[in-house]
């Protein structure tokens, strides 16, 4: 009788229990029973545990369909059995893994779409949220790529967004933010600016002609260890988080650590100081990674860096108080950029060399870039002038980002014109 046949067919499969991690080849059948006898057959099938049949709708009455998931190895045997008994069935799902893969993809795309419409550029975010948004921008725009240029002291990746519409090693512009971790408006603005540039390519003449000719490299969180520390322990942390041999104090001021007048006036030799220059130039991996990247690239035309606060637009030098050779051009360009910034909300930025405008400070990034042949080197100090300082209300992020972008754009347009 059928029972014997059943046992015979499936006995070969006893003990063939696979540890299933995927559902590759699994099929889901819908079985239509015509009478009570057929229902009983299916109930017998159900009792054979070693087959690992997974009934989505159990056999109960002839009028109701029976849905069952069958592991790949048993598919042919179960079908042969059903056919031999004249029990009708159809295939609901040919390969369950395919369906699951597609579902996963759909969910990821949906989450991405949700993220794209819900990333709030007007709010402060954690490092993880920022990194997720970088991934999103890279996936949404074909000319945007997320690259890793190194690792922080605590082994966090240093992610740079590369904007490139083609060519090979085109002349490039560098933009970084958050080298001083407590200056939160800078990381936030950098993200808005990244999104602005990506979405304006193809529609805004200036951005389009810029990226058609030049590449842009944007490092939104230049000091990720410090940034995480400002979220978890101390909102006022400025430096890196490197251990300093022989000291209980932690961290180096990354903007006193560059090889430009290193160790000179305006930087401290005390490890406990917030302007500690570090044991040697480029001792901080966060700095060295950028230096190596820019040197290896070899074709950067501009180096722009965002800080806060004070509303200043500065160019070299900081380590000495003499004027750079290109003073006239940089001063004029700086002034034009400051005027652009002011045009939006009336925010005034003072323009001048670092040394005259804020203080003498050695080991700074734009001094290094300028002395290494990158003429258009500018440092911005964004809003405000001290009322909130580092704790700039989130409501000011978008205005700050928008006005800063106008200043950056002015500089980039000039750089592009001069890079023919």
């Amino acid at each position, binding site marked *: 009788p059928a029972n014997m046949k059943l046992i015979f067919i499936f006995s070969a499969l006893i003990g063939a229990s696979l540890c299933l991690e995927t559902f590759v080849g699994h099929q889901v059948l819908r079985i239509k029973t015509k009478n009570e006898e057929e229902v009983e057959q299916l109930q017998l099938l159900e009792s054979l545990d070693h087959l690992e049949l997974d009934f989505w709708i159990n056999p109960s009455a002839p009028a109701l369909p029976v849905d069952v998931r069958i592991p790949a190895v048993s598919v042919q045997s179960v079908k042969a059995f059903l056919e031999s008994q004249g029990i009708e069935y159809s295939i609901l799902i040919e390969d369950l893994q395919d369906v699951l893969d597609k579902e996963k993809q759909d969910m990821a795309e949906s989450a991405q779409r949700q993220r794209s419409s819900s990333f709030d550029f007007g709010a402060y975010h954690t490092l993880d949220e920022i990194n997720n948004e970088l991934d999103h921008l890279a996936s949404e725009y074909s000319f945007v790529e997320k690259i890793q240029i190194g690792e922080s002291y605590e082994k966090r990746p240093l992610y740079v967004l590369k904007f490139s519409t083609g060519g090979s090693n085109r002349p490039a512009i560098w933009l970084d933010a958050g080298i001083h971790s407590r200056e939160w408006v800078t990381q936030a603005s950098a993200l808005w600016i990244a999104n602005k540039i990506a979405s304006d390519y193809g529609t805004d003449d200036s951005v389009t002609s810029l990226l058609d000719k030049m590449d842009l490299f944007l490092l939104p969180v230049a000091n990720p260890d410090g940034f995480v520390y400002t979220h978890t322990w101390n909102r006022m942390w400025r430096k890196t*988080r490197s251990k300093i041999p022989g000291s209980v104090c932690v961290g180096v001021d990354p903007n006193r650590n560059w090889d430009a007048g290193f160790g000179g006036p305006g930087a401290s030799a005390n490890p*406990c100081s917030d302007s500690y220059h570090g044991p040697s130039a480029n001792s901080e991996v966060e700095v060295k990674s950028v230096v190596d990247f820019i040197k290896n690239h070899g074709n950067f035309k501009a180096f722009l860096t965002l800080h806060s606060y004070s509303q200043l637009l500065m160019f070299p030098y900081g380590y000495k108080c003499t004027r750079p050779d290109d003073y006239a051009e940089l001063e004029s360009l700086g002034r034009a950029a400051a005027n652009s910034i002011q045009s939006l909300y009336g925010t005034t930025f003072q323009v001048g060399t670092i040394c005259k405008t804020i203080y003498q400070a050695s080991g700074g990034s734009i001094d290094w870039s300028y002395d290494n042949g990158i003429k258009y080197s500018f440092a911005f100090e964004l809003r405000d002038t001290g009322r909130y300082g580092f704790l700039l209300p989130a409501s000011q992020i978008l205005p700050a980002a928008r006005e800063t972008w106008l200043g950056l754009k002015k500089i980039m347009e000039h750089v592009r014109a001069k890079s023919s």
Partner: protein
Amino acid sequence: RAMELPPSHFPAGRAAAVAVGYLRYLRGGPGRGLELRTLRRARRQDIDDVGHKYCLELELEDVLDKGRTVHCTAEVLYHLGSKSTAPDVQVTVQGELRSTEEADQQFYNRIRSLEKELVAENIPDSHGNVPPELEPIHLLAWAASGYVIWQNSTENTKFHLAQVKHVKQVKRSDEDLQFDYVLLLHEMVSQEVIPWEVTVLWHPRRGARVPRDRRQPGLAPG
């Protein structure tokens, strides 16, 4: 002997910050926060055996009344070679400041009627938020920080109030309100953020006074 200084250069800016700090202490309070809008003009005079005197023309604004411009002149005299003497400051305000009588009285009454002494921390918070009911406490701290800034400034420093780390009201038997603050002061040249204990007495008619202040010892290792 008097040199004209570019207002955008830091020496003039530092002197202006001292003048504004001083004025904030004198005229600031829970209902008024004075801020520098523009430094119009600055001159410096080196006085033999005395020190460096800065003469400034300033435009200020009250953060609660931004439409109005407050014109000031100020003199800041940094004493020669002195680390322990505060600069001498004189400020002249042209015209009237907006009256804060009503707001001051409301604040005074509100605090006096609290059953439990007010305690708060992190003003603004990490995201720059200040709950509206704590804004007067923030402005009062700003006024008090003006005193500390004035008293501790040299030509090589520039202080701002970075944050109110902690504030605790202390009920008094007399008519003054008392708040014990721990302020975080950001010093721009060294980039240090320095905790400073400041006791503030305030009364609607008598204004703010700082009878006691103390820089918290030690640099935080991290």
